């Protein structure tokens, strides 16, 4: 148990860990610790200690460091420590825009009403943006699925924008390419595919509810009749129409099982509406009810 981590170098071992492990095997409690003590007295282990933590390492490596020198250096560092405060305020620049952005007052955030994609549905959110940089996502009170609130995943969505793993440019096998290159290459590939009716074409998407996106996909489907729907489903579901999930009316319910809401675009609404109808002081009642209704 003590030496379970595998070795990360190819150096020969200076202490035969395997032998030590062997010796400690099966020992428990007092016995275990006594064996450890014995081990630490063996000559190999002493040698290992000497090598690993030499008593006069500094001297051996040619560093002389006695008390006087220590005091000298400490004195100097103490005296110089104050210098870090002597940093003059550096010359700064004020860089106004070439053309002012309408509505933008530098120093004051702007809130944009927009949507983040959740299982193919848009969740209405307000995005706080400082000088063009989004910093915070909050729910949009006017959006029926958000009602002014978000959940952890929507909150974290803003980090996606600053994800260092997100490619900023077109990459091909680790080499930066232009969008033009990508387009020509894509056209070549698709032209070659149309000969076979698109038998090799696969589209991977998440859940899609956008009518526009759906139309675009359908256009491709029509153009390449040989594509198979199976391939399309490989990456996600193609949802037939928008709004197929009506918001549940839970306003008067007292109990709501907290199923995983991570994938549910309307989760926020379900919980908020539920809360609105709940009587105050129902916590105890709810808990009792929950106990009663728990499936056997």
């Amino acid at each position: 148990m003590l030496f379970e981590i595998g070795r990360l170098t190819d150096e020969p071992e200076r202490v035969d860990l395997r032998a030590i492990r062997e010796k400690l095997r099966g020992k428990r409690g007092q016995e275990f610790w006594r064996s450890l003590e014995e081990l630490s007295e063996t000559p190999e282990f002493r040698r290992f200690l000497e090598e690993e933590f030499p008593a006069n390492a500094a001297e051996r490596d040619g560093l002389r460091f006695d008390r006087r020198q220590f005091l000298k250096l400490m004195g100097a560092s103490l005296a110089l420590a104050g210098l870090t405060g002597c940093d003059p305020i550096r010359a700064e620049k004020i860089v106004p825009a070439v053309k002012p952005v309408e509505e933008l007052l530098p120093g004051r955030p702007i809130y944009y009403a927009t949507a983040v994609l959740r299982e193919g549905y848009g969740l209405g959110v307000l995005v706080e943006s400082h000088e063009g940089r989004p910093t915070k996502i909050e729910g949009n009170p006017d959006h029926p699925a958000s009602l002014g609130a978000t959940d952890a995943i929507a909150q974290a969505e803003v980090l996606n924008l600053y994800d260092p793993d997100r490619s900023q440019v077109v990459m091909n096998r680790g080499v930066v390419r232009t969008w033009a290159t990508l387009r020509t290459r894509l056209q070549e590939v698709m032209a070659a595919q149309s000969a076979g009716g698109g038998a090799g074409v696969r589209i991977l998407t998440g859940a899609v509810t956008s009518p526009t996106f759906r139309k675009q996909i359908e256009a491709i489907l029509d153009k390449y009749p040989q594509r198979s729907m199976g391939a399309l489903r490989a990456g996600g579901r193609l949802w037939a129409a928008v709004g197929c999930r009506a918001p549940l009316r839970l306003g008067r319910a007292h109990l709501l099982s907290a199923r995983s809401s991570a994938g549910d675009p309307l989760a926020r609404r379900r919980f908020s509406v539920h809360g609105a109808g709940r009587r105050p002081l129902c916590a105890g009642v709810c808990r009792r009810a929950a106990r009663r209704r728990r499936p056997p």
Partner: protein
Amino acid sequence: MRPLFQPRANTIAKASIVGTAVLILLTVVVLIFVNRTSWATKVGIARQQPVPFSHKHHVAGLGIDCRYCHSQVEQTAFAGMPSTKTCMTCHSQVWTFAELLAPVRESWATERPLQWERVHNLGDYVYFDHSIHVNKGIGCETCHGRVDEMPLVWKEKPLQMGWCLDCHRQPEKYIRPREEVFTMGYVPEEPQEVLGRRLVQEYNVQTYNLEDCSTCHR
């Protein structure tokens, strides 16, 4: 053998102790003094700018309001700086070929912003907000001086903490009617003591926390 310490060692020891104390004190005094010189505070020293923009010409000469260029000074902490477009509204018509204005035209053509040298610069550990001062009747002139007489802007006041506090302790000495905030060369119509006290009442100036450290250092 001669003794290691002669009798005069006593005097030397005393002198060096006193000397050290005096030296430390002197250093502190000199530092405090230097900190107040215009060399340290940069008061009265105009800065070279990429374009020799003259407030004297544009404000006093042409009578342009501060807010035409520093447009957000009433709304945000930052006073705002004119965009290149603001200059070009006029300079696409007047002085269109002036050598002095080449950087402005270049900025307009290349969409690269002008970079003005900052004249007033508080440390990042100080919070300052233009909007509250302007809305409570503190004139630009009180803090920036006669900008309309500056060919190039310089600092008129040291912007040190003592200076801020001087007004925060008694804003009635400096406050003016809101209509006069942008006026240069303002002279109060009635005695400042009377007017100041009335305006502090009228504008509901909150003086109870103006000296708290956390008002400016947050």
